[in-house]
C-alpha cells in the first residue's frame, strides 16, 4: 500500500503531473511530508494540497473490516504442539499468523522444541501435523537430522517404521544456513514465493539472536534492522497464515539496567518490592523493542534443577508455567496443570542448577 503509485490513484491530471515533476511518485513519498512542506515543494495552495492528500490517503489506507468478519475469516487456527497443558494454555497451540518466540539460556531445550515442531509440521494431518513443508533457518548449525529421526521414531513409531516414510518426512524439512543478516533477508524474500505457492506451512528461525550478534554494526542501526525484520516476519505470518517460531538467547542483566520509570525512582516510599537482582538474573537478548514486537513469548528456564516453560506474553493466555523435561521423543511436560505466576516473575529467566549441556552425539539426556 505504501508503494502505491500516485499516477494510478485517479487524481486530477494537473496535480498528478506536479507530483511527478517533483519526483513524488508513491503514497509513501507524499505522506512522509507535512502539508506545508508539500505546499512549498509543489507550489500550490493549502486547499489543493489538502484535497490531494485526502485522495492519496484514501487510496493508500488499509481496507476496513469488522472484528466479527476477521474472526470468521481467520477462524483462528492453532498448531498443536501435542503438549496438552501448553496447548490448552495457548488456546489450541502455537498461534498461526503470529510470531511466537522461545527464549531461554543455552542448552535449555529451545532447539529440541524446534526440532519437535518441525517434525509435527511435516506430519500428515491425521497425526496432528500440518502436512506441509517446513523451513528451518539454522543459524548456529544446531539442526540434527539424526535427532529429528530419533524424536520421530519415538513419538510416532507407526509412521516411522513404515518403509520410506521417515525419509519423506525428513525431506519436507528445508534447512537454510544464512551466515549474515543480509543473507537471511534474501532467504526471507525467497520464502515469500514458496509461501505464495502454499507449500510451506511452518517457519522456524533458530536463532534470531545469533544472526544479530554476528554483525559488526551495533546500536541504533541494528535496532532498526531488527525492527524491520520483526515487522516483515509478522506480515509474512499473517498474510500467508502460517505459524512462525523464533528462538532468542539470554544475556546477564547489568546492574545499571533500566527497570523503573522516572516517577517510580522519585517515589521512594511506595515501592512494594524491589525486583530481585541477586542470583543468576538473566534477560532476553535483542532488547525491549524486540520484546514488544513478538506476539507471544515462551520463556524456558531452569530453577533448582527443574526446567520450566512459561507463557510470558500472550494476548489470550493466562501466565502459566509448566515443568518439562527433554526425552527421547522430544520435550514432554511433567504436569499438564500449569502453575499460575502473577506478577512480573513470569518474565524473569532463571538458570539455576542446570549445568549440564545437552550433547546428543552420544552424550547424556537430562
Amino acid at each position: 500500500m505504501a508503494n502505491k503509485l500516485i499516477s494510478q490513484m485517479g487524481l486530477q491530471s494537473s496535480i498528478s503531473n506536479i507530483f511527478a515533476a517533483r519526483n513524488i511518485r508513491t503514497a509513501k513519498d507524499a505522506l512522509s511530508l507535512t502539508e506545508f512542506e508539500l505546499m512549498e515543494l509543489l507550489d500550490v495552495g493549502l486547499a489543493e494540497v489538502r484535497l490531494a492528500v485526502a485522495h492519496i490517503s484514501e487510496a493508500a489506507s488499509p481496507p476496513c473490516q469488522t472484528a466479527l468478519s476477521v474472526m470468521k475469516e481467520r477462524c483462528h487456527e492453532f498448531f498443536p504442539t501435542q503438549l496438552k497443558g501448553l496447548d490448552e494454555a495457548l488456546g489450541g497451540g502455537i498461534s498461526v499468523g503470529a510470531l511466537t518466540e522461545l527464549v531461554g539460556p543455552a542448552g535449555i531445550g529451545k532447539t529440541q522444541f524446534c526440532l519437535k515442531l518441525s517434525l509435527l509440521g511435516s506430519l500428515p494431518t491425521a497425526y496432528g501435523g500440518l502436512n506441509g513443508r517446513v523451513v528451518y533457518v539454522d543459524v548456529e548449525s544446531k539442526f540434527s537430522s539424526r535427532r529429528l529421526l530419533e524424536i520421530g521414531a519415538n513419538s510416532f513409531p507407526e509412521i516411522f517404521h513404515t518403509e520410506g516414510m521417515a525419509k519423506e518426512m525428513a525431506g519436507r524439512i528445508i534447512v537454510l544456513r544464512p551466515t549474515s543478516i543480509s543473507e537471511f533477508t534474501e532467504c526471507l524474500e525467497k520464502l515469500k514465493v514458496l509461501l505464495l505457492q502454499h507449500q510451506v506451512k511452518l517457519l522456524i528461525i533458530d536463532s534470531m539472536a545469533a544472526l544479530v550478534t554476528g554483525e559488526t554494526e551495533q546500536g541504533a542501526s541494528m535496532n532498526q534492522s531488527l525492527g524491520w525484520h520483526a515487522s516483515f516476519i509478522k506480515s509474512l505470518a499473517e498474510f500467508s497464515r502460517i505459524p512462525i517460531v523464533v528462538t532468542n538467547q539470554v544475556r546477564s542483566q547489568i546492574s545499571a539496567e533500566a527497570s523503573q520509570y522516572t516517577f517510580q525512582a522519585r517515589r521512594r516510599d511506595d515501592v512494594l518490592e524491589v525486583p530481585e537482582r541477586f542470583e543468576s538474573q538473566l534477560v532476553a537478548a535483542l532488547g525491549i523493542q524486540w520484546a514488544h514486537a513478538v506476539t507471544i513469548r515462551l520463556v524456558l528456564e531452569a530453577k533448582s534443577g527443574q526446567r520450566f516453560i512459561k507463557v510470558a506474553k500472550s494476548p489470550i493466555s493466562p501466565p502459566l508455567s509448566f515443568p518439562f523435561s527433554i526425552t527421547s521423543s522430544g520435550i514432554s511436560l511433567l504436569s499438564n496443570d500449569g502453575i499460575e505466576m502473577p506478577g512480573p516473575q513470569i518474565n524473569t529467566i532463571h538458570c539455576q542448577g542446570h549445568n549440564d549441556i545437552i550433547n546428543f552425539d552420544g552424550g547424556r539426556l537430562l
Partner: protein
Amino acid sequence: MFHEDDFFTRITTSCADMDNMLGGGINCKEITEIGGVPGIGKTQLGIQLAVNVQIPLDYGGLGGKAIYIDTEGSFMPERALQIAQACIEDIETNGFYRKDFHVNMEPTSFLENIFYFRVCSYTEQIALINYLDKFISDHQDVKVVIVDSVTFHFRQDFDDLARRTRVLGGMALKLMKLAKQFSLAVVLLNQVTMKYTEGSFQLTLALGDSWSHACTNRIILYWNGNERYAYIDKSPSLPSASAPYSVTAKGIRNSASNCKRVKMM
C-alpha cells in the same frame, strides 16, 4: 467553557479503581496515551475499551462503536469475544438489565461494532488517520479510536528523526481534531524505551520528547511488586495518582489484592 465539562462523557475501563482515578473513565474529546512494558496489558485495555464504548449510556458506556487500528497484529478477535461476553454477563448480573432494551446484547454483535484496520507501515498509518475524517463522517456512531500501537512502525523506518517528529506532530494534530470534531475518545497505545536521565537508565515511553507533549493525557501501566498499576503521568485536570488493576479472563478488572488503594501523590 464551564458548561463544556458537563458534556465530557467517559468510557469505563471496567476497573472501578482506575475509573475513580480518571474521574469516571477515559475522556472523550481528548487524546489519551497509554504506555507500558510488553505484557503489562495495553492491548487488553484497548480491547476492553473497544467493548465498553458499546455499553448503553446508563451503564457507563456511550452506546457507540469503536475503531481499532492494529499496527502490530496483536488484536485477537477471540479475546474480544471473551471480553464482550463477560461484559454482558456483568451488566445482566447487576440486575438493572431490562428486557425492553433495544440493544442487541450478543457478544458477536459487539464484535460487529468494532471497525478493524490492519496497518502494515507508517505510510498506511498516516493515510488511515487522514482518511478517518471521511470514514467517521460516514459512521458518526464511532465514539472511540484505538491505535495499537502508535509506535511500532515509527521506531524503525525513519533515519531522519527530525522528519519523524514532524510527521508524528502532524498525526497528533489530526487525531486531536477528530476527537474534538466528533466528540470521541482517542486512545494511543505506546511502547517503552530506555533513557538516560538523573544519573541512570530509566524506562520511558517511546517516540521521544516532542511526542510526549503531543497527547493531552498520559497513563503509564507498570508493575509494582506483583501487581499491575496505572499511573497518571500527565493530565490537564487530574492529580497524579496510581490505581491497581488486574487482567483476568473477563478482561480488565479491579485488583484482587487486599491492600489495594488509590494512591495520591
